[in-house]
């Protein structure tokens, strides 16, 4: 039984990482109408920036997390302003401009990988956070880093929820995500909100990268596996739905952990997709998804 609980806790914490990346993808999808395929690289960039902040500024782990989120968010805003915005404008506003956006997302992912190679090299680097000994509860022994991921993830999601539901800016973000023309007519500076949405999405991706640092190594290719799981998570939960992204992320994490623990660890990457296929067979719109939304 304690083995099972252990696996669930490990699954929930890695699921929290997927969920944070998936929330970013969903947020960017609803705000900019693009599938951001370079989001795994934003997550990687966030982890490296976190590492740099941690080593050079001598901050503690919590502050490192916050500073890395802010810096990566700013990098995201820069990327959106310099590259994606031109493409969306050429396509007549922020609508799916066909393949262009998707291809450029892949392109951005390759560019960011290579930029990271140039700056930080190909070596996998540990994130040296002294979390101390595992916490013993009965016959469970919980590594603190896992607990940390779950708690930090919950705090971030809670803050995002409060921001979206209870602030003037959050209301504007929701308006822009639903319909840009109407948001414009409310007097909302839509391009600014789009930058904000992209920045928040990137900051959440960075948070995931910094949180995963202590349990995995930080390396240039770390985004590849995560982006695929995060997309699976977003689809399992219902694409574009933020609560769906959270639920999907946690389910994918737990499925993966239980599968690896009880069936076979070498097929670890398959369980997420088994879950995906199962969910799509039963409910094609995803668990919390509404019926397909046609974007004008």
């Amino acid at each position, binding site marked *: 039984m304690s083995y099972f609980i252990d696996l669930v806790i490990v699954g929930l914490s890695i699921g929290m990482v997927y969920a944070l990346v998936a929330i970013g993808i969903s947020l960017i999808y609803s705000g900019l109408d693009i599938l951001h395929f370079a989001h795994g690289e934003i997550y990687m960039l966030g982890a490296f920036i976190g590492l740099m902040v941690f080593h050079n500024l001598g901050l503690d782990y919590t502050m490192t997390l916050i500073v890395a989120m802010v810096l990566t968010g700013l990098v995201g805003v820069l990327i959106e302003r310099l590259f994606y915005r031109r493409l969306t404008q050429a396509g007549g506003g922020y609508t799916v401009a066909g393949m262009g956006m998707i291809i450029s997302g892949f392109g951005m992912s390759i560019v960011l990988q290579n930029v990271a190679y140039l700056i930080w090299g190909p070596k996998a680097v540990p994130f040296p956070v002294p979390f101390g000994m595992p916490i013993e509860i009965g016959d469970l022994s919980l590594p603190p880093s896992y607990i940390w991921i779950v708690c930090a993830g919950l705090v971030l999601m809670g803050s995002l929820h409060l921001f979206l539901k209870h602030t*003037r800016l959050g209301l504007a973000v929701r308006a822009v995500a639903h319909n840009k*023309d109407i948001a414009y007519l409310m007097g909302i500076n839509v391009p600014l909100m789009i930058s904000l949405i992209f920045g928040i999405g990137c900051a959440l991706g960075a948070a995931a990268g910094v949180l995963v640092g202590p349990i995995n190594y930080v390396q240039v290719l770390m985004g590849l596996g995560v982006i695929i799981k995060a997309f699976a998570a977003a689809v399992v939960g219902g694409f574009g739905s933020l609560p769906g992204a959270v639920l999907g992320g946690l389910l994918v994490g737990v499925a993966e952990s239980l599968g690896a623990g009880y069936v076979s660890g070498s097929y670890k990457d398959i369980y997420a997709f088994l879950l995906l296929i199962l969910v799509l067979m039963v409910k094609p719109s995803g668990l919390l998804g509404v019926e397909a939304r046609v974007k004008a």
Partner: protein
Amino acid sequence: MLRVEGVVGGYGSVQILNGATLNVGEGRIVALLGGNGTGKSTLLKSISGLVKPWRGSITFNGERIDGLRPDLIVRRGLVQVTQGKDAYPAMTVEENLRLGAFVVRDRARIARALERVYGYFPILEQKRKQLSGTLSGGQLQMLCIGRGLMSEPRMIMLDEPSAALAPQVVLDIFRTIARIARDGMTVLMVEQNVRMALLLASYAYVIRDGVIHIEGPADALIHDDNVRLSYLGGTVASSDAGLSLH
């Protein structure tokens, strides 16, 4: 107050407006009439900034506004009211209204505007905590008009406020529009319901093929043979004589 001169524009490479010109004086209700595909919505969007005019000029309160971003035009006090279907369904009635006051930072002003809107449309106050997705078509139209008033603009532009509504509901809404105008609002309304629009407005423009085709005082147009034949189905029904919106 609003002066549109020789506006040419459209979407992509499709030209829809071929030099439209109109004027709206302060405190008046002016109607812009025309069938589907004549360019009236495009003209409205050109004024509110959603569509950038290719040529011509648009002046509001003596200031050029053509080419400005739509949110900056809202900040200057000119607001396009959306159609009822464009309320945000996943937000409550009050959230929709507060969104309309996005450009206002002063809480007291927002509270005052909210009170005023609830005065015009008491039903919205009763339903303020409901998701706007649960409202009827007429209530949605009221919500959108109310939302447009929340930033306390100097002029509003209505995009077919009678669209897809029952006659009694249209009458209610038009009476309230008349009341809003009496309280000092300048109104430009795009309508397909020519009869009702001419009863409400003091001056009207008829647009066809992207240019103003006929214009004149509303009570003259209602008896104009061209307008009657093209848009009013020949005669003005006698029942309209007793209909008063003011």
